[in-house]
């Protein structure tokens, strides 16, 4: 009867359900529980409390079947009403193993939320890393903590602890806090000051929950296993977390589809605590029946858990993967080898040898065009070698020389660009390389005409770099070569090359005019200029060496958001620890009301479009659809050199539109054919660009202190929808006709900024569609340390 979705009869149905909820028959009570969510969906204010009351009665039931259905009702009706759970907590835990499997999934999550809300986090668990950061935050910087850890003799741990900290924090924080955190570091200490920690050993409730969920790790249903593993991950003491490992690995066997989901979750676990999975590396060996996405994930996991004891067998595996017919996968493998080598510097030599052999082998056969795959493998292997060399250029001198030698036979432009980049970058390394330089440059100049555009640009850059470092007799030759190259470039068909050439010519006009003998003097005179240049180039090098900050967000294990990597509507982080202590309760629900209200204003504008352009790749799709409030960001991915990302928020920290740096994070999303390597390769050529871009402000206006770091980033936009509570009201508003709220349009205009070429104009228009006035609309720059000039944004706020 509840299935008849009529408002008129809902009070009648409610009475009937209430009666059935007290029925002696188990089946009837179960059906009553099933009817509740349907009733709730009618959104009738007056009966909500009555429904919640019935949920309470049903949760108190003795029969497992009823409890399962009641848990489903609870999750969809009042997921934050922890008093209902509190009353029956013990009973629920005890009954949990007997509840039917689908109910278990939801019940586990509910219980977890309840425990976090009422008792806080467990001191011994991974979440406690928050605590130590927290306490030290007041007097020290995060770095100090890391240093302290490093002194303890576990240097690899520093990265982990930082990551673990990040992971655990993002479990608790909502979207809003995520934004504020990145813009303002103080927020991070304030929002968790109230966090209280409890000990798993003394707290009975926590112990009970862990006890009751541990048999579920053996469940038949992989969703239950994953949910139970999530609880243990968050709540159990660090030394006990390992018990989730075997069950997780076992459910890998169940089906292809769930394998992917489980791997996604294991990936996060393995990154945070690699030692858990270290003994089980064999389970991540790729089998040919895996889908490409699973293969890629397995590779990533393997490279993050590899240790010195397992590396040899892992490498043997990798060698087999390289011969896989799927060349995309082979290229990924090569990238993974590079990662491993960076992780374990001892293996670097072996890796480089192997990769060089691979390159030679590729060269043997790549004279015919056998598709893109081969080229990808080649490029990827050079990227890997490059990243290994970067760690310690001096001891890989021979490798560099070998690569120079192979320039003649490598035809793929991207690969050539990278080798040429290395010519410039490592021109002063070792003894032999400086002697080779003139020959290499002569060769480059000789084949300049036949090169691709990007290669031409890179040759110009490299020549400058070499010129700057050159000494003595070579100087004259190189200068001659350079001016020859400039002449060639100025007549090039491509305007980019022409522009670059003219720019360099202007820049070096002094150097070129003055002839060899006076060269040194000329250098003295223009000391500031080359010095700045040299400085720029070398500074760049240091910047690159610094590891990319982790810009990833993590979601609760087993959640949909973790898979699609953006907050799905209805995704909620764990409740604030101890938020449901009795006196707080009123306030808590108040804040929910507030967010609900906010959400209402928003749903009008962000109605159905709430999901996601999750990667920059899918942006076009979004702009193509016909919601009037859609945003379009034409060519954002092309502009990826810009580090500025504007985010819009309001005072309550509940921004609904978020653009964040995804960095390298999205490589495994969507599994589109553009996986990791094109990204990296893009970065490569960009790097080259950067190195000269950076010269510009330095030389043209040396006084400008503003050095903007340009970082490779792709934007990820997620439009949040605040929780299930929002849905309560959203239906009437879904109609676009009377949608009210704040509309935001924004676009990247093509015109160049007047202030600096690094900045991109972002036009943002706000429109208030609601009847009420809106105030305090602020634009918050997410990454303020990047010195984004907010003044450049034209802000037009109309409060109507």
């Amino acid at each position, binding site marked *: 009867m509840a299935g008849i979705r009529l408002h008129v009869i809902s009070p009648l149905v409610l009475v009937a359900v209430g009666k059935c909820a007290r029925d002696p028959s188990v089946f009837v009570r179960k059906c009553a529980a099933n009817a509740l969510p349907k009733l709730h*969906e009618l959104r009738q204010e007056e009966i909500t409390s009555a429904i919640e009351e019935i949920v309470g009665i049903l949760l108190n039931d003795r029969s497992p079947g009823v409890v399962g259905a009641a848990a489903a009702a609870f999750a969809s009706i009042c997921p934050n009403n922890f008093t209902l759970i509190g009353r029956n907590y013990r009973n629920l835990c005890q009954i949990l193993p007997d509840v*039917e*499997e689908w109910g278990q999934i939801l019940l586990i999550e509910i219980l977890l939320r309840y425990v976090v809300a009422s008792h806080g986090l467990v001191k011994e668990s991974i979440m406690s890393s928050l605590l130590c950061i927290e306490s030290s935050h007041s007097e020290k910087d995060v770095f100090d903590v890391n240093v302290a850890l490093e002194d303890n003799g576990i240097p690899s741990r520093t990265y982990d602890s930082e990551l673990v900290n990040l992971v655990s924090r993002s479990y608790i924080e909502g979207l809003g806090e995520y934004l504020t955190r990145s813009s303002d570091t103080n927020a991070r200490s304030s929002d968790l000051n109230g966090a209280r920690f409890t000990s798993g050993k003394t707290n009975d409730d926590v112990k009970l929950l862990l006890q009751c969920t541990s048999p579920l790790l053996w469940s038949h249903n992989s969703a239950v296993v994953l949910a139970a593993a999530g609880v243990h991950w968050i709540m159990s003491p660090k030394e006990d977390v390992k018990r989730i490992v075997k069950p997780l690995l*076992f459910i890998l066997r169940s089906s292809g589809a769930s394998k992917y989901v489980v791997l996604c979750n294991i990936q996060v676990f393995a990154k945070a605590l690699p030692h858990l999975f270290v003994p089980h590396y064999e389970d991540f060996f790729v089998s040919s029946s895996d889908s490409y*996405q699973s293969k890629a994930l397995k590779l990533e996991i393997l490279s993050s858990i590899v240790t010195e004891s397992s590396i040899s067998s892992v490498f043997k595996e990798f060698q087999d993967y390289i*011969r*896989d017919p799927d060349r995309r996968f082979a290229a990924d493998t090569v990238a993974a080898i590079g990662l491993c080598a960076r992780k374990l510097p001892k293996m670097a030599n072996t890796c480089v040898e192997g990769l060089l052999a691979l390159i030679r*082998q590729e060269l043997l*056969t790549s004279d015919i065009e*056998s598709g893109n795959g081969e080229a990808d493998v080649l490029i990827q292997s050079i990227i890997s070698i490059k990243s290994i060399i970067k760690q310690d250029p001096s001891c890989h001198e021979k490798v560099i020389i070998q690569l120079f030698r192979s320039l003649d036979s490598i035809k793929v432009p991207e690969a050539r660009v990278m080798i040429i980049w290395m010519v410039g970058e490592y021109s002063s390394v070792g003894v032999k390389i400086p002697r080779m330089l003139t020959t290499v440059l002569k060769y480059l100049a000789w084949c300049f005409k036949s090169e691709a555009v990007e290669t031409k640009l890179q040759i110009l850059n490299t020549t400058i770099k070499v010129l700057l470092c050159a000494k003595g007799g070579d100087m004259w030759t190189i200068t001659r070569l350079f001016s020859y190259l400039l002449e060639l470039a100025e007549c090039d068909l491509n305007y980019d090359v022409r522009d670059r050439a003219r720019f360099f010519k202007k820049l070096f006009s002094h150097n070129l005019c003055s002839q060899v003998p006076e060269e040194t003097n000329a250098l003295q005179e223009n000391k500031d200029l080359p010095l700045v240049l040299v400085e720029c180039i070398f500074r760049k090098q240091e910047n690159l060496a610094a590891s990319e900050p982790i810009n990833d967000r993590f979601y609760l294990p087993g959640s949909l958001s973790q898979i699609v990597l953006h907050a799905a509507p209805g995704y909620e982080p764990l409740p604030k620890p101890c938020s449901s202590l009795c006196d707080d309760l009123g306030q808590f629900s108040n804040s929910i009301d507030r967010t609900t209200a906010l959400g209402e204003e928003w749903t009008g504008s962000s109605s159905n479009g709430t999901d996601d352009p999750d990667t920059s790749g899918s942006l076009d799709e979004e702009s193509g659809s016909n919601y009037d409030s859609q945003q379009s960001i034409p060519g954002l991915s092309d502009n990826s050199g810009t580090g500025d990302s504007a985010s819009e928020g309001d005072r309550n920290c509940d921004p609904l539109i978020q653009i964040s740096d995804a960095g390298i994070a999205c490589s495994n999303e969507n599994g589109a054919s553009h996986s990791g390597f094109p990204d990296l390769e893009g970065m490569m050529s960009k790097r080259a660009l950067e190195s000269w871009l950076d010269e510009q402000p330095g030389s043209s206006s040396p006084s400008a202190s503003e050095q903007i770091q340009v970082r490779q980033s792709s934007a990820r936009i997620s439009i949040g929808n605040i929780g299930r509570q929002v849905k309560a009201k959203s239906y009437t508003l879904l109609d676009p006709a009377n949608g009210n709220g704040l509309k935001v349009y924004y676009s990247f205009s093509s015109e160049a900024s007047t202030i600096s070429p690094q900045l991109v104009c972002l036009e943002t228009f706000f429109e208030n569609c609601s009847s009420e006035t809106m105030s305090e609309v602020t634009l918050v720059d997410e990454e303020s340390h990047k010195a984004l000039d907010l003044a450049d944004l034209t802000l037009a706020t109309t409060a109507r």
Partner: protein
Amino acid sequence: MLQCIFLLADNGAVILEKQLTGHRVDRSICDWFWDHVISQGDSFKSMPVIASPTHYIFQIVRAGITFLACTQVEMPPLMGIEFLCRVADILSDYLGELNEDLIKDNFVIVYELLDEMIDNGFPLTTEPNILREMIAPPNIVSKMLSVVTGNSSNVSDILPGATASCVPWRPTDVKYANNEVYVDLVEEMDAIINSTKQFSLLHARFRDGVLVKCEIYGEVQVNCLLSGLPDLTLSFANPSILHDVRFHPCVRFRPWESHQILSFVPPDGQFKLMSYRVKKLKSTPIYVKPQLTSDAGTCRISVMVGIRNDPGKTIDSIILQFQLPPCILSADLTSNHGTVNVLSNKICTWSIGRIPKDKAPSLSGTMVLETGLETLRVFPTFQVEFRIMGVALSGLQIDKLDLQNVPNRLYKGFRAVTRAGEYEVRS
């Protein structure tokens, strides 16, 4: 919660649509999905979770039929996928096998099943035994009846007995004249074998493969035909070899934790009691020795198959399958035993059957490489299938099966079978 379930045929047409909640999901989502499948190929088809502009889609593919489930809100993705797997399992169980025509012929039953399995987006009853009790599987008689009487429903009028009983997976009043219980050990062997291959092209050496990984994934399947409310205990002779286990909900956890004894009240009929994994096995029953040498645009292949460790029973239905690399233009393959088939998508199947006593089966032939390609650099992986009746290769042994309150006549049966799972040989 799930909002809608679609079943798509292999040409993208919607076979079946089942709306679960009040808000309809438009069919256009399937068009969107299929457009992407066409444009992005197989990599999209193997994505289990997809974020479309309006919905999140979970998908699994079984026997050419794509099962899609849509949702708009956060939910555990495995729940969606697992549910779809159950739907697929139960449909193939009911219909015998899965294909488009069968589903279309039995629309009524499929809808009835879905009705029982999921309500308002939340999975309800997925236990096959109980479903069978509620909805009779299709058979000729019921079809005849429905034609004659015009009554097309085969939902039973009475509530399934299990709903009232205290054990949710077992009806209360089961009566059998003969009490029988059968336990089957069904094992699948997963193995990865590397045949070490030298890079020197002229004399590729002929060596035994290196076992990279070998493990057994096994299931204990029980067919229980017992009256009343039996309480069974099953114990293994060597439970220590089990690496991981997973249980049917009916298994009590405590006895397993303390004594490694399975104690359970079984559902009625066929069910999967537990699944387990045995790792780090040392040997495989058969060997496959591929040898590929390539020179001057042609590639010679020879594969030998034979018994390495005789398990004591015959190994039958041996099938070797491999995908020829894309750079191969044509292949001419012959074998001295069994039949060889090369399909148009370059999948080569060599079905051997049993290994004869007098000779070792071998496959040989030449393949022509793409013009310009001198040597072969990508190598196929051979997937091997076999079946051994009567042996559980993991060595797991059932010690005894006890029954509390033993009925008069009780027959206990035991069987074992080992199959190849993901058994592959890299060349």
